[in-house]
C-alpha cells in the first residue's frame, strides 16, 4: 500500500495544516484508506467547515417543524397523521461535466434522502441555472440536464411539478442543478439516521458497489480548471429502475419495526453513511469490507469506502430481523448483505480479508473536523440610478412588453416541463408554469404547494437584500396559489469561500435569509451548501435557491393565475414605487446593470401576504399572481395569456411614469382578480389592514391589453412568450 505523505494528502484536497492535525489526532500517519476517509469527511461538502458557523444563525424553529436541519431531510407537520419530508440539494459540478448523469443522479440522491426517512416521494422540483444563451455550451447542457432530470424522475414515477430556469453569463463555466423532493410520511413512522444499541447488525442494501464516483464529494469541494473533462469518470451513473425497487423495498421493510436507523449512501458513500450513523448514536461501528457486494473485481478497501455508486442504503437492524428483511430485498431482486455491527468502541474499524485496514475514532472525523471562521467582506448598497426622461423617450410599451416576455428568464418554459412527467400519481392539481406546483395529499382534502426560487441578480447587487428577497418571493408564490406558507429548504450555491468577496456574499445572503425567515415565521428545515462554483478564477453570482412548501387545508380552494371572467376588477396589492434598478427592464431595455435591488420591507411583506391570505379564506379572490420579474405588466400579460382574456387598464394616477409603474420590481406585491360584486368588501378588508392597493382595470372578453391608446394583442404576446425557448432549442 502507498505510504501516505503530505503531498498525497494535498492531492486528496486536504490542506497542509489539516494533514498535520490528522497526524496529531491519530498520533501516527494514517494509512491510505484512513486518509481517504478523512479527506471525504473533512471536505467542504461533508463537513460544512466554512459555512457551519453561519448556518447556526438560520431560523429553524416553528410550530409545525418536526425535524429541522441535521437529518437526511426536514420534516413538517401538515395536520392529522401526515407530515411532509423535504429537502433541496445541489449536483452542480457533476452536471457540468456530464449533464445527463449529473442531473439524473442529483434527482436520485435527493429522492433517497426523502424516502430514507420513511416517506413516499410525492413531488419533485428543480432549480437550474445555465450560462448565457449565446455561450456555445449552454444548449447542450440544458438539453442534457433536462433529459437527465426527466429520465430519472419519470422512471421512478414521481411527478416533477415545478421549477425555475435561469440564464446568466456567470454560470458559463459552472451551471447549477438543484433538485428538490417532497415526500409524505405518517408522523409516527419517521425514520432517522441515529444508530442505537450495541451489537446490532449493519446491513448493506441496493446496488452493488463499483468504482464510479470515487472522490465525488472532494470534487464538489474544489474549483474547476481546464482539465475538468478528465474528471468525467468521477461522475456517478444513475439507475432509476434500481432506485424504484429500492424505494418500494425500503417502504415495505419500514412497515414493521425492524429498522433502528437508516441512511442513504450519498456523497462519500459508505464512509459518510456509516460514520454519520455511529456519530449521531455516539457508538462505534465495525465493518467487514470483504462482504460488501462489489460490481467490479479486486476493489480495494479504499475504493469501497470512497465509491459513490448510486442506489445504495445502509441500515442498522434489530437483532433477529435479518431474515425477514432479506426476504423483502430478495423479492425486489436487490443485494442484501450483513456487513458489520455497531460497537461501543466509538471508533470506525474496518476489516478486509480478515485484516484490520482502518481504525479511527469517530469523533476525529465528525466533531473534530475543522471549522473555519473565514474572512469576509461586506457588500455596500450600490447607489440608486437616476433614470432620465430621455431614457424612456423613444420607448413603446408594446415593444418593451414583447422584449420582456421573450426574455430567456421570463419566457414560458414548456419545452422543459413537457419533458417531465408532471401528472403521474394522479394528484397534480397545479402543473408547472404557475407560481407554485400543487399536489393533493392522496386520499385527503389537503394539498401541498411547493416552489423553488432564486434571484442571483439581486443577491449579486446586494447579498443581504437578495437573501431576504428570495425568501419573500417563495412566501408570495405559495400564497398566490392559496397555500399557507410553512417552511423552506435552501440550497446555497456560492463561489470560493477562501475569497473574502465570495465568503461575504455567503455570509450576508444567509443573514438576509435568516432575517426574512424569522420575520415571516417561515423556518429553514433542511438544505445544503455548494461552494467552489468557480472556473478559472471566475465565480458564479451568489445563488441561494429557496424551496418553499405550503399547505392547503382544502384543495378545492386552490387559486390559479389565469383571468376568469369578463368584467372582473384587477387590483395590485402593495405599493408601486417605481424601483427599476436591477429589474429585467433596466438590464435589458435600458441596458443599465448597476444600482441596488428593490428594497425589502418585511413588515409590508408580511402584512400584504397575510391580508391576501385573509381574502383567499373569504373566497374573494378569483385569480392571483405575485409580481416578480418584469413587474406588473408582465404579471398581467401572463394572466391574460393563460386565461385567453384581455384587460382594459385605467389611466395612471401615479407620479411615476408608465414604464416605472408597469415594469418596476418593487416587492411585496400581488395581482388579484376580484368580482365587481365583492370589490367593496375586498377594499374594506385591505383598508382595515392598512394594505396599499391600486385598481388597475378590468378583465375584457376581447383578447387585447388596452393601455391608454395602445392595444396589444394577447395572442401576439402569447406567441412571443411561448416560442422563444422552443425556437432556441429547435
Amino acid at each position: 500500500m502507498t505510504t501516505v505523505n503530505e503531498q498525497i494528502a494535498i492531492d486528496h484536497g486536504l490542506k497542509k495544516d489539516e494533514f498535520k492535525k490528522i497526524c496529531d489526532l491519530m498520533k501516527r500517519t494514517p494509512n491510505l484508506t484512513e486518509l481517504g476517509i478523512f479527506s471525504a469527511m473533512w471536505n467542504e461538502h461533508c463537513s460544512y467547515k466554512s459555512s457551519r458557523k453561519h448556518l447556526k444563525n438560520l431560523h429553524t424553529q416553528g410550530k409545525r417543524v418536526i425535524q429541522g436541519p441535521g437529518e437526511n431531510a426536514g420534516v413538517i407537520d401538515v395536520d392529522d397523521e401526515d407530515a411532509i419530508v423535504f429537502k433541496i440539494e445541489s449536483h452542480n459540478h457533476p452536471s457540468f461535466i456530464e449533464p445527463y448523469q449529473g442531473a439524473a443522479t442529483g434527482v436520485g440522491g435527493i429522492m433517497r434522502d426523502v424516502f430514507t426517512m420513511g416517506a413516499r416521494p410525492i413531488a419533485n422540483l428543480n432549480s437550474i441555472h445555465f450560462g448565457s444563451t449565446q455561450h456555445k455550451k449552454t444548449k447542450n447542457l440544458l438539453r442534457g440536464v433536462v433529459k437527465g432530470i426527466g429520465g430519472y424522475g419519470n422512471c421512478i414515477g414521481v411527478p416533477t411539478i415545478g421549477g425555475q430556469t435561469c440564464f446568466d453569463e456567470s454560470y458559463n463555466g459552472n451551471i447549477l442543478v438543484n433538485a428538490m423532493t417532497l415526500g409524505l410520511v405518517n408522523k409516527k413512522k419517521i425514520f432517522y439516521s441515529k444508530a442505537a444499541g450495541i451489537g446490532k447488525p449493519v446491513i448493506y442494501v441496493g446496488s452493488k458497489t463499483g468504482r464510479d464516483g470515487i472522490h465525488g464529494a472532494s470534487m464538489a469541494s474544489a474549483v474547476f480548471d481546464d482539465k475538468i473533462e478528465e474528471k468525467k469518470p468521477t461522475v456517478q451513473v444513475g439507475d432509476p429502475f434500481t432506485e424504484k425497487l429500492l424505494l418500494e423495498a425500503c417502504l415495505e421493510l419500514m412497515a414493521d419495526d425492524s429498522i433502528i436507523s437508516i441512511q442513504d449512501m450519498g456523497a462519500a458513500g459508505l464512509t459518510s453513511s456509516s460514520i454519520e450513523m455511529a456519530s449521531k448514536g455516539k457508538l462505534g461501528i465495525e465493518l467487514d469490507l470483504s462482504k460488501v457486494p462489489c460490481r467490479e473485481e479486486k476493489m480495494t478497501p479504499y475504493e469501497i469506502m470512497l465509491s459513490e455508486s448510486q442506489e445504495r442504503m445502509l441500515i442498522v437492524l434489530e437483532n433477529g430481523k435479518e431474515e425477514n428483511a432479506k426476504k423483502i430485498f430478495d423479492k425486489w431482486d436487490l443485494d442484501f448483505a450483513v456487513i458489520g455491527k455497531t460497537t461501543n468502541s466509538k471508533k470506525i474499524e474496518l476489516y478486509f480479508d480478515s485484516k484490520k485496514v482502518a481504525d479511527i475514532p469517530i469523533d476525529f472525523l465528525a466533531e473534530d473536523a475543522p471549522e473555519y471562521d473565514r474572512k469576509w467582506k461586506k457588500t455596500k448598497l450600490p447607489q440608486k440610478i437616476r433614470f432620465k426622461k430621455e431614457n424612456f423617450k423613444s420607448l413603446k410599451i408594446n415593444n418593451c412588453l414583447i422584449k420582456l416576455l421573450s426574455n430567456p428568464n421570463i419566457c414560458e418554459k414548456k419545452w422543459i416541463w413537457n419533458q417531465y412527467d408532471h401528472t403521474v400519481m394522479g394528484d397534480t392539481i397545479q402543473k408547472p408554469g404557475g407560481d407554485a406546483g400543487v399536489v393533493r395529499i392522496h386520499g385527503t382534502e389537503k394539498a401541498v404547494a411547493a416552489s423553488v426560487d432564486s434571484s442571483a441578480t439581486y443577491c449579486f447587487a446586494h447579498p443581504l437584500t437578495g437573501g431576504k428577497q428570495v425568501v419573500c418571493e417563495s412566501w408570495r408564490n405559495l400564497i398566490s396559489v392559496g397555500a399557507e406558507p410553512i417552511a423552506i429548504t435552501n440550497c446555497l450555491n456560492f463561489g470560493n469561500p477562501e475569497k473574502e468577496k465570495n465568503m461575504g456574499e455567503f455570509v450576508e445572503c444567509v443573514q438576509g435569509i435568516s432575517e426574512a425567515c424569522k420575520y415571516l415565521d417561515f423556518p429553514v428545515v433542511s438544505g445544503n451548501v455548494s461552494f467552489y462554483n468557480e472556473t478559472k478564477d471566475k465565480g458564479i453570482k451568489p445563488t441561494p435557491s429557496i424551496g418553499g412548501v405550503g399547505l392547503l387545508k382544502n384543495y378545492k380552494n386552490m387559486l390559479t393565475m389565469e383571468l376568469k371572467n369578463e368584467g372582473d376588477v384587477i387590483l395590485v396589492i402593495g405599493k408601486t414605487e417605481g424601483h427599476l434598478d436591477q429589474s429585467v427592464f433596466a438590464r435589458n431595455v435600458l441596458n443599465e446593470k448597476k444600482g441596488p435591488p428593490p428594497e425589502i420591507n418585511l413588515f409590508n411583506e408580511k402584512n400584504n401576504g397575510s391580508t391576501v391570505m385573509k381574502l383567499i379564506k373569504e373566497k374573494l379572490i378569483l385569480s392571483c399572481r405575485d409580481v416578480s420579474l418584469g413587474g406588473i405588466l408582465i404579471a398581467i400579460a401572463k394572466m391574460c395569456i393563460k386565461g385567453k382574456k384581455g384587460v382594459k387598464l385605467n389611466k395612471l394616477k401615479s407620479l411615476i411614469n408608465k414604464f416605472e409603474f408597469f415594469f418596476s420590481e418593487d416587492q411585496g406585491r400581488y395581482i388579484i382578480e376580484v368580482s365587481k360584486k365583492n370589490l367593496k368588501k375586498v377594499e374594506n378588508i385591505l383598508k382595515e389592514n392598512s394594505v396599499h392597493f391600486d385598481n388597475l382595470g378590468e378583465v375584457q372578453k376581447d383578447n387585447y391589453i388596452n393601455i391608454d391608446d395602445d392595444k396589444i394583442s394577447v395572442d401576439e404576446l402569447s406567441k412571443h412568450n411561448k416560442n422563444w425557448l422552443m425556437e432556441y432549442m429547435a
Partner: protein
Amino acid sequence: MKSAVIIFPGSNCDRDMDVALKKFGFKNEMVWHDDEQLPKSDLIVLPGGFSYGDYLRCGSIAGKSKIIKSVIDFAKKGGLVLGICNGFQILTETGLLPGVLQQNKNIEFICKNVFVKVNNKNNKYFNSIDKDVLELHIAHNEGNYFCSGDELKMLEDNNLIAVSYCNEKGEVNENSNPNGALQNIAGIFNKEKNILGMMPHPERMIDKFLSGEDGSIFFKNLLNNLK
C-alpha cells in the same frame, strides 16, 4: 365487476390505475409479476411505467415474465385485456397486438394533454360513449407507433385503429400527431376487440381538478358495458 392490475418491477401507474378502477366501481386486485395465476377477473390491466427499467426494448422483458403466460391465455379465451402506455408496449412485445412503439419522433419525453378520436365504438371499451373526441393525457418516451404495410392494412380493413391523435375538432393530421405515430395511431385493438392497447392515460383524467375528466367517461362506460 372484477379487475386485476399487474405490477411489474418498475411499473409506476399501477396505483393510479387501481384508484381509477375502484373509483368507478370495479373490485380491483393487484397481481405481482412473479405469480403464475390470475385471480378471476372480468378485466386485466397492464399499467404504465418502466417495467424492468425498460433498459432493453420497452416492454420486452415484461413480455416474457411469469404472469404474462396467464394473461395471454386469458386474452385468447376472449378476456378483456387493457394495456396503457407501457402496457401497450408490453402487448406488442407479446404479439397479442401487432406493431411496435418506437422512440418519439422528437427524441424527447412528452407529457401533455392530447385529443384522440374514437374510431370504433363497436366494442366493450367504447360502446355507447357519446363523445367522438376525448381529451386524454400522454406521458411517454416511446409512443411512436409503427407496423408493416400488411399489418396496417389489416388494422384498417378491420377497423381496429381504436383511437387516433387529433385536434380539438377531431381532425386527424400531422399537426395533431405528438410523437410521429403511423397514421396518428394512439391505440389499437386485436381482431376480436377484447384487447386494447393505447398510449394515453385515462386514469390521469378522472376528476375536474386533474388534467381533465374524459378518463371518467372511459371507465364509467367500460363498467357499464361489462355489466
